[in-house]
C-alpha cells in the first residue's frame, strides 16, 4: 500500500519533467531460480530432502556443507545434469524464470545453454584455445553470422585471460596451467551468453594464486550473471558470496545472507560446522 502511494507521488513529480517513474521490480522478480520441495533419490539414497531455495539475480550464492551432503547434487539439478544418471529420481520443482525446468515441454538444450556449469577439475576440450571458446557458438544457429574472432576475444577478456593467451590462440588449451584452463572453461561457458553460471568447487584443484584470480573473476561476473557456487572452502564462501546455504545430509539447514551465516548463524548445526566443531 505504501509503495503504491509513493510511486504515485513520484510519478506526479516526474511527469512535471516529462518522464515516468519506473516501478522497482518486486522481490520475486529478482529470483532467477527457485526450487520448491525438491527431492532427489539415487536409488534408495534420499540425496535431497525438501529443498526450498531462492537464487537471486546478479548475486553470488554459495552452498557449503560436508562431503556427501548434497551440494553438488543440488546445483546439478538446476540445469538437469542429473538426467544422465539412470538411478536418479526427482520430485518437486526447480523454477527458472518462473517455469519448472522438469516439466515436459521444456527444451533441455536451451536450459543448459542458459545455465552454464563449471566443474571442479578444469575440462577444456582437447583442441585449440580458440576452438574451445568458439565450440558452443558454432553449434548454435543464432551465432551463424557472428564474427567468431570478435566473440572469442570478448569472452577471453571477460574471463580475464585474454592478455595471457592472445598470442597463442591456436595452441592446445590442454597445454595451459590449471588456473588458466579453468578460466578458459569459464570463457567457454560465457561464450553462449548464459544467464546463470553454476560452479562446482571451481578452485579446489588450483593453487592459491590461481584461486585468487578465479575468485576475483567470479566477483566480476556477478555484475552480468548470476552465480551459484559449491565450495568446501568456507573462507572462500565468506569472501565472495552474497548469500550462503548450509546443507547437511540432504537438507538445507540454514540459508541467509553470507554475513549473517558466518558471523551469527541461527542454527546450532551451522554454528558447529563453520567453527569446526563437527563430527
Amino acid at each position, binding site marked *: 500500500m505504501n509503495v503504491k502511494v509513493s510511486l504515485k507521488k513520484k510519478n506526479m513529480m516526474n511527469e512535471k519533467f516529462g518522464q515516468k517513474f519506473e516501478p522497482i521490480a518486486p522481490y520475486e522478480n529478482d529470483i532467477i531460480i527457485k526450487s520448491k520441495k525438491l527431492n532427489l533419490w539415487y536409488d534408495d539414497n534420499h540425496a535431497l530432502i525438501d529443498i526450498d531455495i531462492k537464487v537471486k539475480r546478479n548475486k553470488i550464492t554459495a552452498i557449503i556443507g560436508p562431503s556427501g551432503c548434497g551440494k553438488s547434487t543440488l546445483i546439478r539439478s538446476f540445469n538437469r545434469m542429473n538426467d544422465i544418471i539412470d538411478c536418479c529420481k526427482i520430485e518437486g520443482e526447480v523454477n527458472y524464470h518462473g517455469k519448472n525446468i522438469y516439466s515436459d515441454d521444456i527444451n533441455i538444450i536451451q536450459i543448459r545453454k542458459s545455465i552454464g556449469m563449471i566443474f571442479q577439475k578444469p575440462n577444456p576440450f582437447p583442441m585449440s584455445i580458440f576452438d574451445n571458446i568458439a565450440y558452443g557458438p558454432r553449434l548454435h544457429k543464432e551465432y551463424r553470422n557472428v564474427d567468431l574472432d570478435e566473440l572469442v576475444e570478448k569472452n577471453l577478456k571477460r574471463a580475464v585471460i585474454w592478455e595471457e593467451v592472445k598470442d597463442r590462440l591456436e595452441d592446445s588449451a590442454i597445454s595451459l596451467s590449471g588456473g588458466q584452463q579453468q578460466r578458459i572453461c569459464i570463457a567457454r561457458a560465457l561464450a553462449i551468453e548464459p544467464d546463470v553460471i553454476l560452479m562446482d568447487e571451481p578452485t579446489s584443484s588450483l593453487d592459491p594464486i590461481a584461486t585468487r584470480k578465479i575468485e576475483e573473476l567470479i566477483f566480476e561476473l556477478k555484475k552480468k550473471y548470476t552465480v551459484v557456487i559449491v565450495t568446501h572452502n*568456507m*573462507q572462500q564462501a565468506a569472501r565472495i558470496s552474497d548469500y550462503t546455504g548450509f546443507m547437511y545430509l540432504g537438507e538445507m539447514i540454514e540459508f541467509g545472507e553470507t554475513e549473517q551465516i*558466518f*558471523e*551469527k*548463524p541461527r542454527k546450532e548445526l551451522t554454528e558447529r560446522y*563453520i*567453527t*569446526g*566443531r563437527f563430527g
Partner: protein
Amino acid sequence: MAKVMHEEIINLKKEFIEMANLALSMLDDAINALINKDIELAKTVDKRKRSIRDYDVDMEEKVLKLIALYQPMAIDLRRLATILKNITYLYRLGRYGKDIAATVKNFVDLPPLSESLGIIHMWEHVKPMIEDAIEAFDVEDISKLKNFEERDNEVDQLRWSIFRESVSYMMEYPKYITACAYILMIARYLERCGDHACKMAEKIHYMVTGDHIEIS
C-alpha cells in the same frame, strides 16, 4: 586443526581473566593506598604497569596470529574480536590505577579528603561493574550486564556530586585546593573506568549474542 584453535581460545580467555584481575587489583590497591595513605602499596601498583602492558601486547599478538592462521568464524571470531577490543579497555583500567596511585603522596599530611568526598563510595559502584563484566565474559552469560546503563548513570551522578563538594571545599579551605584538584581528577578517572566497563559489556554482549548494543 580446529581443535588446536579452540584450545588456544580457551587459553586466551584464561589469560584475559588474569589480565582483568591484574587491572582490577591495580585500581583496588590504588584506592586503598589513597584511603590509607599507604605509599608502599601505591608503589607496588606502579610496578605492575609493566605487566599490564605485557599482557596487552602479548594477547594482541596471539589473537592476530589465531585469526591469520585459522580464519575463525561465528562464536570463535566473536570471542577473539571481543578479547582484542577488551584488552585495550583493561589496559586503560590498569593505567588509571597507576595514575591514581601516583597521587597518593600528595595526601599524606592531609585530613582524609578522599574518604569525606566520596571516592570510596564511587569505587564501590565502579568495582562491581568491572567484576560483573569479567564474570559475564568468563561464563558467557549476559544477565549481569542488563542494568549497566543505570549503574553507569549513578557513577556519573556521583562524579558530579564529588565535583560540587570539592568546589565548595576548595572555597572553604583554599589550602586544600591542590589536593581537591587531585580528587576531581580521580573522580574523573573512576567515571572513565565505569565507561570502560560499559564498553566491555557491549563487546561481551556481542560475543554472546552476535548483536551490537549501545550502553550510553
